[in-house]
């Protein structure tokens, strides 16, 4: 049983400022010593519709949101209509007193808290939108959360706008707390701050990956905005220059990846952030990076497709696409971090792998990982572990000492050729998109083709040793092993905990972060399992298929989700296949 496990859901129309309010409150709770898991659920529109932000808080680390809602903050009646049923018995609904609560939405087991949000916001703050701040005061008041942490966020967020703005917001919070006062005795849930907690971090997957990339020496980012991949481009545009990194928003995705390749040939560690549809435009250039053996990191924050699909929602359906993108065959890495910690780690390691093997490295994130906020320990982003390894890059001194003509695509045992950056008088060479010989000149002879093709493919021998192995969570020898990749790790981990809480030794999970090249230790790990169930955010079971192709292992069951919503532990438990649940299909 997780202590102080409370879920707050804030709902309203797009444009009501839900995301910034949610993120602000997430920070306040973290400062108050609690762990949060915050998930935005937004439609692809700027105004109107129905958006909500779910914030789960507890006194231990969280990996998912769960179904029960303890406190619903309804900035409009649509929120009560859609989420009223999700509130647990004893829970509460905060709504604007200017609205009339229709009889059919009333529940006798839920506390309704009408607060004149708009009226007070106008009276105290002068603007409607400030009712969010007021509502957060009510939330803090009802949950008896130490309001000073909320106030500290207000000071930080609004400090730049001047004391008057800060004071206005502080008065709104005080008014909110006061409005909650008469209801507190009738509301059983509490989120008391934990004293003496270390100063933990709260961030999302976009930030974790971007910081990892920066730490790993990424100095060139070019791309075109596409939700949910834009976050990384925006992050670098806002922070990069301070650290000497160029970030360019260019005319389209094709320009984005080609610019990055141009920069990478010259020697910059280059990154292209996008989402699946944007990556579709980058496919040809991926082949150019591969043929020219240019190190490049491609980040795809997946969303449901095809085409425009569900722009602001999540999916894990681009795995096979990335694995096979571009014509013919060439080695590549496909990595799929599951947590913020892994996203940070992959962020820097991707650049080492790209340069060590002079190949494209593809990082698969998704909207769920990219946009979800989570509290982690102060040292969870392991900056000390970061190394910058440029592989077979020739130094200026090494080039000065060259006695033979430089050969960019020299055939070597490892398949990796020593790389010179353009600009040295002893290493004058052409990056080639045509098949080429070692020099390189364009060369179409069969013998040469085989030599170069085999050289490129030989890199896999080294790559396969470096791909991250799958990781276990849960008790050894469990009755069922769930298999997942990427962001499904978190919700699945909580589902595994639930199953083991019912009956110990029931379940464990095997999480794939490295998928291509297929990690050689994976087969032995999979063969340890008594029963295997794949859990993936796609229709056909893409990792499942890869495992079958690579190992011949067939899953005993699978759980798929493709409605654009992230997995939750309850969804997994409700969809257990017959092989696990023992129930008839």
């Amino acid at each position, binding site marked *: 049983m997780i202590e102080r496990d409370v879920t707050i859901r804030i709902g309203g129309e797009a444009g009501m400022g839900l995301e910034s309010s949610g993120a602000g409150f997430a920070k306040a709770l973290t400062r108050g010593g609690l762990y949060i898991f915050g998930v935005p659920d937004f439609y692809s529109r700027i105004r109107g519709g129905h958006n909500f932000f779910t914030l789960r808080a507890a006194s231990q680390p969280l990996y998912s949101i769960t179904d029960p809602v303890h406190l619903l903050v309804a900035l409009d009646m649509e929120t009560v209509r859609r989420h009223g049923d999700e509130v647990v018995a004893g829970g509460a609904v905060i709504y604007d007193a200017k609205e009339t609560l229709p009889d059919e939405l009333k529940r006798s087991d839920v506390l309704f808290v009408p607060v004149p949000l708009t009226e007070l916001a106008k009276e105290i703050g002068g603007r409607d939108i400030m009712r969010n701040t007021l509502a957060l005061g009510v939330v803090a008041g009802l949950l008896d959360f130490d309001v000073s942490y909320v106030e500290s966020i207000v000071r930080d967020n609004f400090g730049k706008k001047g004391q008057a703005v800060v004071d206005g917001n502080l008065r709104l919070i005080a008014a909110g707390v006061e409005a909650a006062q008469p209801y507190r005795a009738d509301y059983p849930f509490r989120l008391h701050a934990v004293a003496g907690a270390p100063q933990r971090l709260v961030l999302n997957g976009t930030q974790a990956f971007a910081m990892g990339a920066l730490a790993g020496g990424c100095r060139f980012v070019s791309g075109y905005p596409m939700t949910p991949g834009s976050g990384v481009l925006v992050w670098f545009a806002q922070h990069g220059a301070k650290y000497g990194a160029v970030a360019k928003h260019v005319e389209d995705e094709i320009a984005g990846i080609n610019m990055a390749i141009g920069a990478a040939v010259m020697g*910059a560690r280059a990154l292209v952030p996008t989402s699946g549809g944007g990556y579709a435009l980058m496919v040809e250039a991926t082949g150019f990076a591969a043929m020219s053996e240019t190190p490049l990191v491609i980040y795809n924050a997946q969303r449901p497709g095809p085409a425009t699909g569900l722009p602001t929602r999540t999916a894990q359906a681009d795995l096979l696409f990335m694995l096979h993108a571009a014509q013919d065959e060439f080695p590549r890495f496909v990595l799929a971090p599951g947590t913020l910690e892994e996203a940070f780690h992959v962020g820097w390691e991707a650049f080492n792998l790209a340069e060590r093997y002079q190949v494209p490295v593809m990082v698969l994130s998704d909207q769920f990982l990219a946009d979800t906020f989570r509290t982690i320990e102060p040292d969870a982003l392991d900056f000390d572990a970061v190394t910058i390894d440029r592989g077979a890059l020739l130094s200026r001194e090494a080039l000065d000492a060259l006695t033979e003509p430089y050969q960019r695509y020299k055939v070597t045992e490892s398949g990796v050729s020593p790389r010179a950056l353009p600009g040295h008088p002893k290493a004058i060479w*052409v990056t080639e998109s045509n098949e080429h010989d070692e020099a390189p000149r364009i060369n179409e002879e069969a013998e040469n083709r085989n030599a170069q093709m085999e050289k490129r493919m030989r890199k896999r021998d080294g790559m396969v040793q470096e791909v991250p192995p799958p990781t276990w969570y849960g008790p050894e020898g469990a009755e069922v092993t769930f298999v997942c990749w990427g962001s499904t790790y978190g919700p699945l981990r909580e589902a595994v905990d639930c199953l083991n809480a019912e009956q110990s030794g029931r379940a464990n999970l095997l999480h794939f972060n490295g998928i291509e090249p297929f990690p050689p230790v994976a087969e032995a790990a999979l063969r340890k399992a008594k029963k295997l169930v794949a859990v993936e955010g796609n229709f056909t079971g893409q990792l499942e298929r890869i495992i079958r192709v690579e190992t011949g292992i067939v899953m005993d069951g699978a759980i798929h989700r493709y409605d654009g919503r992230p997995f939750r532990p309850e969804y997994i438990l409700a969809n257990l296949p017959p092989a696990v649940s023992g129930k008839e299909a």
Partner: protein
Amino acid sequence: MVTRDDYKISEKPTWCPGCGNYGILSALTRAFVEHGIAPHEVIVVTGIGCGSKLPQYMRVNGMHTLHGRPAPIAQGAKLANHQMRVVLVHGDGDGYGEGLGHFAHETRRNPGVTELVQNNKIYGLTKGQFSPTSEKGKRTSTSPSGSAENAVQPLALAITQGATFVARGYPGELNHLVWLIGEALEYPGYALVDILQPCVTFNKERAYDYYNGRVYKLEDEAGYDPANRTAAWERAQEWGDRIPIGIFYRAEPGLTYEAQEPALKAGPLVAQPLAPLAQEQIATLLADLT
């Protein structure tokens, strides 16, 4: 001192005898030599097509890339190492067809790139289909009843988009072409030299016979002022009995794409040391997350 020998290579071009690309290759080499540019100080970025094989036929750094994409690749190269000269060379199908979008954006961006277009108004390497600069009505294998489109107007488009050095050359006037390329190389911003490249095999109607006697030099034209943008835009569309070559438009370039980039104030990107972040930098990053 830089000499022509520095650019010499044993590789023989795969171009047809009489191809305009020989003149362009020769003019580019001569311009490099005349302006004291050594092969390691420059990178020649090309697309895909007959002419784009050019960096294979001289001893120079090159990037032989993808059809339609050399422009963004060249801009990325320049951003990564702005001390290096970046010369972008490609054909009309490449830059005005597949890559027209990139061209339209590049010309409003002022990257420090010198762009030379081998404009033969035909697809050569795929054996003679009409190109974006073919004149309307051109009959080819893919336009048996005549092409339906107006020709792209690259010079007028570049001027419209804000390019500040816009020129046209002709290998039949080789010394003039050498001079033009030199002026473009010395220009401190984006410079376009569109080159009328005779294709003697697949576009015989637009070979030397057509251009000789039609081309005239703007520099010899009394009263022509290349600083006059409106006049340049009008002249850029002159085609027929008289075909202008020379510098159509030349103005103050303003800051380049690279010079406007804050991260490059300390020098070229690739010259900056690449080391793990310092403790205070990490502290700054983490401060945003607490």
